[in-house]
């Protein structure tokens, strides 16, 4: 497939990300405006960070005029899960891929772009496909931020509510189909959801931020799965 077709394919698969981002960043735009930022500043934050939880947390840091160190640490803790995602993604690129692709794609390693890239049908994910995803996701994130910052009631509540599940629907479309042929993956998905629920409702555990919950459960569950059910040499991506 030509690079242009790969880009188009990525862009098409990125449309649900566009819609989901529109809804989430819209609320970020509103929150940023309430936090005293200008529309331009809110848009600049979204364009340079392309992340959800980290940006919301940053608003709190900025509003309370906390130190720059605190800003750095907050972002490190909340966004550390991307480190796991990038490590996983690193195994999905051709070893002969030009290095600059890694530096560019790194900008777009969000939960969603990572998820969709991981679901690519071949072992090596072509960079053009990733760029297509980013090209669809980025405008959603920036446009939503701008709309929310300019006018908090420009999008009707019913539409925002409906778009709120777009990204989760996408995640489900990524993780469910492979579980049909692989009982280990089925077990992993079910256990991950149950333990995540456990973390969300158990006293003390529920105080752990969602970013850290992802890291802890990933280390435990993916670690246990790798120990007890190591993949066979050729198994990984031929489904």
């Amino acid at each position, binding site marked *: 497939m030509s690079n242009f077709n790969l880009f188009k394919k990525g862009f*098409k698969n990125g449309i*649900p990300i566009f*819609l989901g981002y529109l809804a989430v960043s819209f609320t970020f735009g509103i929150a940023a405006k309430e936090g005293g930022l200008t529309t331009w*500043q809110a848009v600049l*934050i979204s364009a*340079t960070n392309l992340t959800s939880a*980290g940006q919301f947390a*940053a608003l709190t840091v900025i509003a309370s*005029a906390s130190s*720059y160190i605190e*800003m*750095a640490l907050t*972002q*490190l803790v909340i966004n*550390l899960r991307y*480190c796991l*995602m*990038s*490590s*996983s993604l*690193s*195994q999905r690129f051709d*070893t002969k891929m030009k*290095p600059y692709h*890694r*530096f560019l794609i*790194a900008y777009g*390693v969000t*939960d969603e772009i*990572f*998820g*969709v890239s991981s*679901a690519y049908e071949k072992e090596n994910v072509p960079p053009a496909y990733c760029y297509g995803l980013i090209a669809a996701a980025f405008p959603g994130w920036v446009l939503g931020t701008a709309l929310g910052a300019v006018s908090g009631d420009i999008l009707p509540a019913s*539409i925002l*509510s*409906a778009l*709120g*599940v*777009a990204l*989760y*629907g*996408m995640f489900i*479309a990524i*993780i*469910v189909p492979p579980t049909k042929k692989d009982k280990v993956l089925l077990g*992993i*998905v079910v256990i*991950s*959801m149950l333990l*995540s*629920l456990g973390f969300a409702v158990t006293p003390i555990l529920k105080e752990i931020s*969602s970013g850290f919950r*992802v890291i802890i459960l990933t280390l435990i569950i*993916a670690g246990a*799965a*790798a*120990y007890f059910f*190591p*993949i066979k040499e050729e198994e*990984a991506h031929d489904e």
Partner: protein
Amino acid sequence: MNNIYLYMFIMAAVTYLIRMLPLALIKKKITNRFFKSFLYYVPFVTLAVMTFPAILSATDSVWSAAAAFLVAMVVAYAGGGLPTVATIACAVVFIVELFI
């Protein structure tokens, strides 16, 4: 008052470095079977953990979200592709919320 643009630079730099360093440093295919398996399983765990129970609070009503969750699981299991599942999930929320 601290400088807003310095805050922005710091957050963007930290976030980018977290994403970039593993991609830049791990250039070879890992041969260790444990780590290879671990990284293969990572997306399934992270996405499952992020989806549930967070999806239940993603809409205006826990019922519309729960309905969207169940329908999305069924459609995905039945072979619906990524845009299809996402669109149907949104449609379910919209329709359910018309009635509550």
